[in-house]
């Protein structure tokens, strides 16, 4: 099976993980900027991180025939200090010119605060200014419903092109909110939180196979870089055809990502 991994944090993974996903058919991989598991002490730390995303990781992926792309932002967990967040954001325009940058992401909310929301809105403005697509992180667990609603309200106020926005980490209660308003939706397959493969397929069967993708969001936490392909096998157990599986794990991410000027296979 061929597939695109639309959301993986490879800076936290080993080179052996690149080898494993290449062996099971990964043709391209997209890495959103995220929280490192601790708060970085300076904007310079982000400068180094953006270099890692735009220079080092593409070279590491290329050794296994995988195309590596990335999204840039300051993640919502580090956006509670708006002065610091704006200092980091001032670095982004210089990196947007790099050939593997897809757009702005993963922006969003974490604890649904006023400061997080302000920085989210400024990221949306930045994406509009550079005419780039947006990848959005929705909060965890009990904060997801409220955060998703706040994000949808902010996007509505910003009058974005909904075809070029994907709202990630949807679950059963937020998938219809996102899809009904015309945005793309992403589902994350995690062993302990977010979606299991069985539940992700339930969401596909309930809300449709259009404008939705699946990702492993593998990072430094409990996560599985092979999650997408394992879910594809689960879809086959559920008697979905090879064509439908291919649509969900290859055609759908390709369709969304092809709106990014730098994306190609």
């Amino acid at each position, binding site marked *: 099976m061929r597939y695109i991994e639309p959301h993986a944090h490879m800076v936290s993974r080993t080179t052996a993980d690149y080898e494993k996903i290449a062996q099971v058919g990964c043709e391209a991989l997209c890495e959103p900027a995220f929280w490192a598991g601790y708060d970085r002490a300076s904007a310079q730390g982000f400068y180094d991180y953006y270099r890692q995303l735009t220079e080092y990781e593409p070279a590491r992926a290329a050794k296994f025939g995988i195309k590596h792309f990335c999204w840039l932002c300051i993640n919502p967990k580090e956006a509670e200090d708006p002065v610091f967040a704006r200092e980091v954001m001032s670095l982004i325009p210089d990196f947007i010119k790099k050939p593997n940058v897809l757009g702005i992401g993963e922006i969003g909310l974490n604890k649904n605060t006023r400061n997080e929301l302000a920085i989210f809105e400024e990221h949306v403005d930045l994406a509009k200014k550079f005419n780039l697509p947006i990848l959005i992180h929705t909060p965890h*667990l009990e904060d997801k419903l409220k955060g998703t609603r706040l994000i949808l309200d902010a996007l509505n106020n910003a009058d974005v092109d909904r075809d070029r926005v994907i709202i990630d980490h949807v679950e059963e209660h937020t998938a219809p909110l996102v899809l009904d308003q015309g945005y793309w939706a992403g589902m994350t397959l995690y062993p302990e939180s977010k979606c299991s493969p069985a539940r992700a397929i339930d969401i596909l069967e309930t809300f449709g196979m259009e404008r939705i993708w699946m990702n492993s969001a593998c990072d430094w936490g409990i996560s599985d870089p092979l999650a997408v392909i394992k879910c594809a096998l689960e879809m086959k157990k559920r008697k979905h055809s090879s064509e439908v599986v291919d649509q969900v794990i290859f055609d759908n991410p390709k369709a969304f990502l092809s709106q990014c000027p730098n994306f190609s296979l």
Partner: protein
Amino acid sequence: MPTKKDIQDLYFMDSRFKLLEIASFLDRVERHDGEADFRHEAFMKALMAMQNPPEGTSRAQAVHLAFSDHSTQPAESATIQFAFGAHQEEDPS
């Protein structure tokens, strides 16, 4: 598409296993000393919601909604970076 029986063949044993994990978790909490925090009440509420989902709401959605923060205004600030898994109502005092 699979039939109901096909779905049972695929998922019954796994779900039975997980149901026993939940039952044992509740027994374990009850057996140990101290007081359970707000998550216990939220868990019991979610179990009830699963058994009696509101019309138009799936069981999975009902469980999510039982654990969720339903307030609508942004928080003034963040005191923690993580999530507990269940919303803790603010102490009115």
